[in-house]
């Protein structure tokens, strides 16, 4: 049994009158890949964004309940959301490299957080992050080329390198492969597998097969509720809830 990294209890999220997340409690374990599955609009992204307070940027969004990272409430007034997001990094659906060089994309986080003492240390962080994101060999000879000039799959791995350059403890990924071809998808999946050694990973995915392949824990969301949460093998082989069964087997509920 792994340590609990993030403990979310009785979380509610509202967008104005829209009650988007209803009393969700989920534990995210360390060195574990947790996947969120469920039909579109059921609140997966909303809940994921709660985990690093990305929802703070949406005016009409209100979050209630408790979310602890290593036992500390991340919504506490004393917590700086920018620092929090360095610890809980995020990778989005569409690869979104900055219109800068490959090097600068990765160096961006360490620079704003002042984590590197000098150029040499920054170089080291950039190389380490690119290696961890399994893209170093493909870009090491053109670190000054624009990040936007890479292929879709490479861009996504660059974004992962950017996210891990701040040495996060948790990596949130919102449908990171949905814009990628099957080969690039396989590379990112392989990467997720390796990232698990160093981080706790939470991934939202539309592909049930992907969730089954990459994650050890799975939560099934439906209309803002978590219907079932458990070991991925159990959820996909023998779900306890009929709604889960209907969804993963592609049945009309």
């Amino acid at each position, binding site marked *: 049994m792994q340590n609990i990294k993030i403990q979310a209890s009785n979380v509610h999220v509202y967008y104005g009158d829209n009650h988007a997340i209803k009393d969700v409690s989920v534990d995210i374990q360390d060195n574990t890949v947790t996947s969120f599955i469920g039909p579109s609009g059921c609140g997966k992204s909303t809940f994921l964004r709660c985990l690093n307070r990305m929802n703070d940027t949406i005016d009409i969004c209100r979050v209630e309940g408790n979310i602890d990272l290593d036992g500390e409430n991340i919504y506490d007034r004393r917590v700086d959301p920018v620092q929090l997001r360095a610890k809980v990094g995020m990778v989005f659906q569409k690869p979104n490299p900055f219109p800068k060089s490959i090097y600068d994309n990765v160096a961006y986080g360490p620079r704003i957080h002042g984590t590197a003492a000098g150029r040499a240390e920054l170089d080291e962080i950039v190389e380490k992050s690119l290696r961890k994101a399994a893209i170093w060999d493909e870009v090491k000879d053109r670190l000054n080329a624009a990040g936007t000039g890479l292929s879709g799959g490479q861009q996504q791995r660059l974004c992962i390198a950017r996210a891990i350059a701040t040495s996060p403890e948790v990596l949130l990924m919102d449908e990171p492969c949905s814009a990628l071809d099957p080969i690039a998808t396989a590379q990112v999946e392989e990467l997720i597998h390796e990232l698990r050694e160093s981080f706790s990973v939470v991934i939202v995915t539309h592909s049930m097969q992907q969730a089954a392949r990459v994650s050890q824990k799975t939560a099934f969301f439906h209309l803002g509720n978590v219907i079932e949460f458990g070991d991925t093998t159990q959820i996909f082989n023998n779900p306890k809830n009929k709604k889960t069964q209907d969804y*993963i*087997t592609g049945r009309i509920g």
Partner: protein
Amino acid sequence: MGEHIVSAFDDDLVSIQAKISEMGGLVEEGLKMALQAVNDRDPEMAEKVVELDRKIDDLDIEIEQMATTVIALRQPMALDLRVLLSALKISTTLERIGDLNKNIARRASHLASAKKVKLTRSIVAMGEATLKQLTQILDAHSERDSDLAVEIWNDDIQIDEMYNTIFRELVTYMSGDPRMIGLGSQLLFIAKNLERIGDHTTHISEMIYYIVNGEYLGDDRPKGEPLGLDLFMDD
């Protein structure tokens, strides 16, 4: 269970289920004919069982191809995956029962020239019990009746016991009259094959249980350990 959003998936599953029922029907028929061949010592009937088995083999391949295609195209999960994996295993098991039927029937040709013994009756009775189990398990499969499957699984001990009784009697006959050895060993093979069919029936029980419950039935079924010759060596 509700219907799939992709209705062709439902059609595929229904066709596979129908093929298994068809195959089960033929295997049942084959066992009936094999028992009749033994009872009547009828080599022609035996030949029909051999012919029937070719059809059973073809169906096994057909089911395997259908299930493989569906797995590749639909990437089934949970219940659907269990149904398809079990379809593969059940059709393999039925195919093996078909082989055992054939084996039983072939012995009938050897019996044709031998003299009548009352033991043939006990073996036919054992065959009828085995056939009943097989018929019931095929019903349990088409009804997805896990309780009935478990009942049949537990009942297999009766077939094991019938086998042990026949074994004991045959060995007694054969040791009393060496001229009985030829006939006796043929009958012994038949009884052994029936006992194997009973075991395969319990494998189908286990598959049905797995489909319905998503868990394994386990291996602590009441079993009658088949007797060995050493039983007669002690005294």
